[in-house]
């Protein structure tokens, strides 16, 4: 046991030296490169500035989002949420779309929460509206979008479009389906009363400090998981800004339909967390149409590679397809409509 502990300490010590030292060694490498290849040195420096600009502006929101998510995980039970939602279809669907303001879960936090809620007998339409809207309709996203775009058409458009799309898709489910038709077997099991889920949060012996420790443990995991997508997305955006001439994107970026499709595809692939995607969108401002940016900011948080994988754990395949196609078509329509009819 003692030996094991010692080994651990060694690994940590070596790890610290290597990890902390690496960037400083690379610093020497960069200095050498900028002497031998000045053009490359300058290009790399511009790229680093553009990358760090987005990252530094975004990282506070990513951290805030992670902490909120950890706190909800440790302190709020599905019962608390279920109690707040009215049971009739139309009203509750709209309430579902705005629930994110009370429970600001991000797009990764929302899927497990919705699954838990379904087990508590939450109406299907409410869950769908909550699932689609919560990643956007939440205070952290409101602030980050405002920081990026100020009081502008993009800011208002993002929330109007996603609110409407979430309600419409929710209501389609309300009137067209029953839980048995859409939920995956795993989630239905719980509908019959059993809890497939070993853990509940109603363990009252948890003290406040333990819960806080738990919350931060969740927050850190989430920070690294979401940070991965943020860094990859930021790398792509800053590479594009540094190395691709704006003019070469112009044909598609200014096309009313093409620009929307291009940024929707980008949003789906990048899977960047909704708390920080506004800063990536900023990199497209001026190059792409405003409608495309609104679609990017509305569609991305609802559907992307990451959330698609998570949807598959809750819903049947056919339903997952609807959950992708309906928001896709509705935000596509909204973006194109914006480009053709609105002046900003």
């Amino acid at each position, binding site marked *: 046991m003692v030996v094991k502990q010692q080994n651990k300490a060694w690994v940590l010590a070596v790890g610290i030296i290597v990890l902390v030292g690496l960037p400083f060694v690379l610093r020497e490498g960069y200095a050498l490169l900028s002497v031998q290849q000045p053009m490359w040195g300058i290009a790399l420096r511009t790229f680093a500035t553009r990358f760090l600009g987005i990252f530094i502006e975004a990282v506070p929101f990513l951290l805030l989002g992670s902490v909120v998510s950890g706190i909800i995980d440790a302190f709020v039970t599905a019962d608390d949420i279920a109690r707040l939602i009215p049971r009739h279809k139309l009203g509750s669907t709209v309430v579902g779309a705005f629930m994110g303001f009370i429970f600001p879960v991000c797009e990764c936090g929302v899927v497990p929460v919705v699954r838990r809620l379904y087990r508590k007998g939450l109406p299907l339409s409410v869950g769908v509206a909550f699932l689609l809207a919560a990643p956007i309709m939440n205070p952290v996203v409101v602030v980050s979008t405002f920081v990026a775009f100020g009081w502008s058409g993009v800011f208002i458009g993002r929330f109007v479009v996603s609110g409407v799309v979430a309600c419409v898709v929710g209501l389609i489910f309300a009137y067209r389906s029953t839980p048995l038709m859409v939920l995956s077997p795993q989630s239905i099991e719980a509908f019959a009363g059993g809890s497939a889920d070993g853990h509940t949060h109603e363990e009252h012996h948890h003290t406040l400090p333990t819960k806080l420790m*738990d919350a931060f443990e969740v927050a850190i995991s989430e920070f690294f998981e979401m940070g991965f997508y943020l860094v990859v997305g930021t*790398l792509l955006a800053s590479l594009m800004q540094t190395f691709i001439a704006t003019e070469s994107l112009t044909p598609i970026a200014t096309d009313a339909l093409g620009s929307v499709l291009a940024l929707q595809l980008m949003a789906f692939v990048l899977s960047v967390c909704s708390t920080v995607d506004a800063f990536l969108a900023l990199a497209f401002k001026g190059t792409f149409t405003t409608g495309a940016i609104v679609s990017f900011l509305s569609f991305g948080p609802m559907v992307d590679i990451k959330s698609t994988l998570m949807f598959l754990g809750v819903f049947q395949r056919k339903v997952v397809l609807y959950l992708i196609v309906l928001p896709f078509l509705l935000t596509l329509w909204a973006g194109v409509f914006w480009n053709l009819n609105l002046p900003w």
Partner: protein
Amino acid sequence: MKSIRLIIVGMLLGYLGYALYSGQLANYINLRFQWLSWVALVILLLMLVNQLIALVKPNGLHVHEHDHEHSPTTWYMLAIMGVPLVLGIAIPSAPLGAEAIRGSVSTVGFAPAVSASTFNIAPEKRNVLDWVRVISDSADWAEFDGQAVDVSGFVYREPNVPEGQFMIARFTMSCCVADASALALFVEAADAEQYADGDWVQVTGEMDYRTVEENPHMVIVASDVTPIPVPEQPYLYP
């Protein structure tokens, strides 16, 4: 994995703290949003404390299966989260300069939103952004003819710039470098060729209204061009 995570959180804390302390943050974001970086610093510190406690007394942490769906932190997540640190530490911090313009520079003639207060600024107090605003908003450019100019910025040249001229440019940003765009004014100086693209200079002289190929044109006729260090706030905030 957890100890590497701990190190990365610690290094992010250190990097952000240094960027705030050294003023390098001004190279990346509008300082109006500096408080956000302080928020980030506090959260990172709390995370670091949490991880240290967990490391020291592993039993104190009540680890259990969470409903929250995480994939565990994997090596590639850790590697990717190291990228900002490498770019931040390995490459000396610098603001966007002449090489970042790549042809898309705005000068007088386009119409940014102009506020009444911009007009009340005395001519010699106007910066590049103020000048571009007032001139673009004016119906009669001749009113600026002969006004005193004292502006700072970096040297930039369009491919077809006439001999004896360069542009004095600044980047403006509202949020961070992602939305930075370049603004510039034309300068005519006897020693124009001495200054390379990207050099920071202070230009004093007077505005000259002229017509070039039947188009109205504004040029600063420099009486003096002085090299200056990169200012602490390299960007202008509209």
